[in-house]
């Protein structure tokens, strides 16, 4: 026996890859149950090693033989007078396996090798083959047990959920009633189980909405696992950028916003049999609206089933809203929680300006250390109102933690990097507790296991909207009793807990019962726009579960009118109906449309995406000098959108060049890469939307190009990526890592660097995670070469394109404009002040480029001319267009772009009023511009009017074709838009008119206009050619402001200081550059002439244009009008220029 073994070991080596490969050819062939190269195959050989070691150990101890004999004796003793089971005499573990493996191949080899004996010098002998087969049987058995164990555990857990016993009741209620309310507290299992109960009861096509995207993903994952469809698509999710939905999907988790979008497409939601709206008690804007829409849908579709799921908060409200829908209340599974009120003594209460006093919080940590031995595990979750408060308390707690070595302090809020957020789920080492200091994000959105202690400050910071100042405001409030209970509940999820409330019980009693629903706090612009596009009638009469104040609906309607999304009667405009379909802010949507019109879609897509996600620039890295230096080349002093554009482009370029390594690149610059990935996804979604609305030429994807070899290469690459993604997903469920004691010490400062170091150290253990899964997903989702082309396009923007892009951004953002204070040049960098129309004295947010470089906003001294104490004339005045006005401790402007004031205002403003010679202009009733030179003033204004008319015409033409579903053909020819963009750029860059710019005082705005005039005061309303100034627009007296309303945005001669335009003294000799006209004209006559007299080339071009030919000819014909000449006594059809020429004819003849 011994010698045999030695001989074997000479020819057969189990550790040799070659020897194993020989067995692979017998057991793991292409058509076998387990194939060489598969995951199971790898697992088998790992199992084999363990199995061999186990056998050797057992053989050495020699126990098996002895036991075998004992057993025989045992068996002989028993068995009298009973059924003989016929079990084998000798125990063998193999008898416990209910599987066998037999192929002809194996049998033959086993047989043959017996004949040939040891003749074969290499290759597996019978011993090896039977060893391998035995190991395989054990492996199969092991896998079976493993999977069965999972299944059994799953079923056990499902049964243990409190909601399990209501299973039949829920199904029955849904069968009988069209609306059912299921109310249950955290941990009752409603979100995961109710959809499954309905599915297994035979309901198909179930939609389940969630307020948060992350919940859609995790629930779909969990429920597909629980319903044993982990690798199928019976259960799927759909969120903004991604979906796992297929035709086989029966249960879909999706966001509330997305279901609303689906209703826009499919009004009756015919695709669903059941709609479950989860977390209705959170009262998000979309959810409240969705409930309203579903309420009328249920009345219409008797077969639709609606299930509302809520915490046990305010259930009656929901039931009543749906005509007393039945309520099923499920008890939660919370362990008892002991509540301690520890109000903060007055001397430790911070006044508004001061930092939070950390003493009350430190006492809680100390108290826990004194009362509970460290071996009794359980972490602390501390709720504070905001990020500043968190860092104050974190600092103090960290000192205590470093001293005691019993705590790891971790912050948690949404502006942290995802890697830092993720740390709160890691495990503290024995004897150490986590102290997680969080905003209300941990109240519902993030659930952390293992929390035993909760400390609640009772405060929350909430965003509210101030309609008067058009400003977002972040304010601190007391929380509601419902929130307070929710926070407390976080201590009792895994065992009995303790909740310290840092307020008095009387305070608690005085709290509002529920939080203020979002619909009462936020701007309703998008909501109203969506309602309009869904034809839901007057928003004021829509039956909301808790209607928002009428004033807030009114504000939104006004804003949408200002934005051009609604017309004066409150109906959707063509751009409005397009904007309603884009899942973005109205301003961003406008930018996208404008960008596509001028063929600047590539940079605009990036900017629009960048402005729609959180900033990728981490606040924590701002004070890190290395990051600041690395970021420097990305900055653009044109404005924050351009910095974001540069950042995105540089990131894309880097990804193209080096492939991987973008994580490190981002870390060095203090960038949260996740945001860039979000941007690239959003960008793609925008592009698809524009394409589907015919606003972009549909491009045939270049990915299908290339020769066969290239295609094959790409295919293999994609397969590899898919495999990587699958591997990652499998590893994801592996265990959490254990935190190090020092973990918290770095997380406040240069956190991003230590993260990298930490990951590196763990090296081998987490090697699987070294695969940058984001990078893999990115490569799978996007066509990199296409993206890189887009980047190249938007990287080499000429100064002309940049100027145009800025104008388009500004038109999108309008009326969100701010004026630099006149005294800024004498102020310190940090004290620069700006004014918006509705709010004075705002400052630039410290994250903006202009906060560190405010000089570029000032008028260069070389260009100024002091005209008096309050008047500085220059051609270089600038304004800031901004994305948000946000008040925290101060009102801040965020995401700003600087634009030339005069040109931009004339090109985008909704209301421009002038005096008689157009040297004084008032824009939107708050900005006053005074131009010195009447000649130049007139020219500037008239050019703007001409450009705007053309711009409007092209925009309508483009939107017109897009709504008609024109696909490949764009409504506007390239030549025409190029002409316009050239004109606009020239206007923006080379208008060198000196003017003053200031904000009107409240007093000045009172007596701004002439006011209504009687007919007799307006002798010139029937002036020939006035309406020809703008085709389709008729100049008529303005009943409120006075003067003449020339276009929808331009009011001529209505300012109180106005002179009479037609008084002869205003007539000056003028020669037209386009025709041979030379004669004395009034300003208005001149503008009329300029509007109709185009250079010869330009007119030809419009004629060439095939698509908009009709619009064009009608506009041409509208230029001619019937003119009755008193001298000739004849009706003539002439353009205004021709009329002037005609008149001149008589002038000379009569003189």
């Amino acid at each position: 026996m011994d010698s045999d073994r030695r001989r074997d070991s000479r020819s057969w080596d189990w550790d040799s890859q070659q020897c194993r490969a020989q067995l692979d050819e017998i057991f793991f062939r292409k058509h076998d149950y387990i194939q060489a190269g598969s995951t199971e195959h790898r697992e088998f050989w790992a199992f084999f090693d363990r199995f061999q070691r186990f056998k050797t150990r057992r053989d050495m101890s020699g126990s098996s033989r002895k036991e075998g004999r004992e057993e025989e004796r045992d068996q002989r003793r028993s068995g009298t007078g009973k059924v003989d089971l016929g079990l084998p005499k000798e125990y063998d573990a193999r008898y416990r396996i209910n599987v066998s493996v037999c192929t002809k191949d194996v049998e033959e080899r086993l047989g043959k090798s017996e004949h040939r004996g040891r003749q074969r010098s290499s290759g597996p002998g019978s011993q090896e083959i039977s060893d391998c087969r035995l190991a395989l049987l054990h492996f199969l058995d092991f896998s079976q047990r493993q999977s069965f164990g999972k299944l059994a555990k799953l079923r056990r857990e499902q049964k243990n959920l409190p909601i399990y016993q209501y299973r039949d009741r829920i199904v029955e209620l849904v069968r009988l009633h069209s609306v059912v309310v299921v109310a249950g507290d955290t941990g009752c299992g409603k979100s995961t189980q109710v959809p499954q109960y309905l599915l297994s009861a035979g309901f198909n096509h179930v939609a389940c909405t969630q307020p948060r995207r992350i919940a859609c993903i995790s629930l779909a994952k969990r429920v597909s696992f629980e319903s044993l469809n982990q690798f199928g698509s019976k259960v799927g999710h759909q969120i903004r950028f991604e979906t796992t939905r297929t035709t086989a999907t029966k249960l879909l988790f999706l966001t509330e916003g997305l279901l609303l979008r689906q209703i826009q497409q499919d009004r009756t939601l015919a695709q669903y049999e059941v709609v479950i709206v989860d977390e209705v008690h959170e009262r998000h804007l979309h959810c409240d609206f969705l409930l309203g829409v579903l309420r009328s849908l249920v009345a219409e579709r008797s077969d639709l089933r609606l299930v509302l799921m809520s915490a046990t908060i305010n259930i009656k409200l929901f039931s009543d809203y749906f005509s007393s829908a039945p309520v099923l209340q499920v008890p939660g599974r919370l362990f008892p929680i002991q509540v301690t009120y520890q109000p903060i003594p007055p001397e430790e209460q911070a006044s508004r300006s001061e930092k939070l006093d950390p003493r009350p919080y430190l006492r809680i940590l100390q108290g826990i250390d004194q009362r509970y031995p460290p071996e009794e595990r359980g972490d602390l979750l501390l709720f504070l109102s905001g990020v500043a408060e968190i860092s104050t308390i974190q600092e103090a707690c960290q000192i205590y933690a470093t001293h005691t070595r019993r705590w790891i302090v971790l912050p948690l809020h949404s502006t942290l990097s995802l890697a830092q957020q993720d740390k709160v789920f890691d495990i503290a080492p024995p004897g150490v507790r986590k102290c997680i200091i969080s905003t209300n994000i941990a109240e519902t959105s993030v659930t952390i296991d293992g929390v035993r202690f909760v400390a609640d400050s009772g405060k929350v910071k909430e965003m509210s909207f101030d309609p008067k100042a058009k400003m977002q405001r972040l304010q601190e409030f007391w929380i509601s009793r419902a929130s307070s209970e929710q926070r407390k509940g976080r201590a009792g999820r895994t065992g009995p807990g303790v909740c310290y409330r840092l307020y008095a019980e009387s305070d608690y009693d005085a709290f509002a019962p529920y939080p203020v629903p979002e619909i009462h706090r936020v701007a309703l612009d998008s909501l109203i726009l969506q309602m309009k596009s869904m034809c839901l009638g007057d928003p004021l009469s829509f039956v909301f579960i808790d209607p928002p104040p009428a004033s807030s609906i009114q504000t939104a309607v006004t804003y949408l009118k200002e934005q051009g999304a609604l017309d004066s009667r409150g109906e959707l405009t063509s751009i409005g109906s397009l904007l309603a379909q884009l899942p973005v802010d109205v301003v961003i949507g406008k930018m996208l449309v404008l960008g596509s019109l001028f063929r600047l879609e590539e940079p605009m897509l990036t900017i629009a995406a960048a402005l729609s996600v959180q900033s990728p620039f981490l606040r924590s890295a701002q004070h890190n000098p290395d990051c600041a230096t690395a970021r420097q080349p990305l900055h653009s002093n044109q404005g924050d959108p351009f910095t974001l554009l540069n950042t995105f482009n540089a990131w894309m370029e880097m990804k193209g060049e080096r492939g991987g390594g973008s994580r490190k690149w981002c870390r060095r610059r203090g960038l949260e890469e996740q945001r860039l990935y979000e941007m690239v996804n959003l960008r793609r979604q925008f592009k698809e939307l524009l394409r589907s609305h015919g606003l972009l030429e549909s491009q045939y994807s270049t990915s299908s190009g290339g020769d066969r070899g290239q295609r094959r290469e790409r295919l293999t690459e994609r397969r590899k990526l898919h495999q990587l993604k699958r591997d990652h997903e499998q590893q994801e469920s592996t265990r959490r890592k254990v935190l190090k004691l020092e973990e918290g010490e770095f997380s406040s400062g240069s956190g991003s660097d230590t993260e990298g170091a930490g990951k590196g150290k763990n090296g081998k253990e987490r090697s699987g995670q070294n695969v940058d899964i984001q990078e893999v997903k990115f490569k799978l989702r996007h066509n990199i070469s296409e993206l890189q082309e887009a980047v190249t396009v938007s990287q080499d923007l000429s100064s002309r394109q940049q100027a145009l892009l800025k104008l388009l951004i500004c038109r999108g953002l309008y009326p969100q404009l701010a004026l630099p204070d006149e005294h800024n040049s004498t102020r310190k960098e940090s004290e620069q002040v700006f004014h918006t129309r509705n709010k004075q004295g705002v400052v630039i947010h410290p994250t903006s480029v202009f906060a560190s470089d405010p000089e570029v906003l000032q008028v260069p001294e070389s260009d100024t001319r002091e005209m008096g104490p309050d008047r500085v004339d220059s051609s270089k005045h600038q304004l800031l267009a901004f994305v948000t006005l946000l008040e925290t401790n101060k009102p801040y402007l965020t995401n700003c772009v600087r634009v030339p004031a005069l040109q931009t205002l004339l090109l985008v403003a909704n209301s421009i009023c002038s005096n008689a010679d157009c040297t004084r202009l008032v824009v939107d009733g708050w900005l006053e511009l005074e131009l010195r030179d009447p000649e130049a003033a007139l020219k500037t204004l008239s050019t703007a009017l001409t450009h705007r008319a053309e711009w409007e015409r092209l925009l309508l033409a483009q939107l017109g074709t897009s709504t008609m579903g024109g696909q490949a053909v764009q409504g506007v020819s390239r030549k025409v838009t190029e002409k316009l963009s050239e004109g606009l750029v020239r206007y923006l860059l080379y208008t060198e008119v000196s003017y003053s710019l200031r904000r009107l005082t409240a007093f000045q705005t009172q007596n701004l206009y002439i006011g209504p005039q009687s007919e007799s005061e307006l002798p010139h309303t029937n002036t020939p050619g006035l309406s020809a100034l703008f085709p389709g627009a008729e100049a008529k007296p303005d009943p409120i402001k006075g003067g003449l309303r020339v276009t929808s945005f331009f009011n001529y001669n209505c300012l109180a200081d106005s002179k009479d335009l037609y008084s002869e003294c205003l007539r000056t000799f003028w020669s037209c550059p386009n025709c041979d006209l030379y004669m004395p004209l009034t300003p208005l006559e001149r503008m009329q002439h300029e509007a109709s007299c185009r250079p010869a080339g330009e007119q030809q071009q419009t004629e060439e244009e095939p698509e908009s030919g009709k619009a064009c000819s009608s506009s041409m014909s509208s230029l001619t009008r019937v003119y009755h000449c008193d001298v000739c006594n004849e009706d003539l059809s002439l353009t205004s220029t021709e009329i002037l020429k005609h008149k001149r004819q008589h002038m000379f003849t009569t003189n």
Partner: protein
Amino acid sequence: MSNMEHTASEAPLKTFSCQLCELSSPFTYHGQKPPNTRAIVLLEECFVTRDPFSPDREKFLVLGSNCSLCGMRVCAGSDCSIFYTKRFCMRCVNKHLDQFPHQIQAELAKKKQQSSRTAVS
């Protein structure tokens, strides 16, 4: 892929349910030779489903079978049955414990002890 799934989900699913622990789950095959298992043969007539925890669609999972003595339908869990050349439900095992080898007896005794300990604490 979605096509296959479609047809799979269309087929009426019968449910296996353990008569001892009530564990239940749909099964797709009953017998000794589940589809696509090549060289593998089961040594008893089993209720089989696709292994839901494997990404590979061809992997099977045995849910349980009938006790070879009393015919009761039992799951493969060690609390409900034992396979030792044949399937025995736990009731039958306990009835004929003396015929089972020493190893199995010891194992069961140990388990009983453990479960009673957890029940006490």
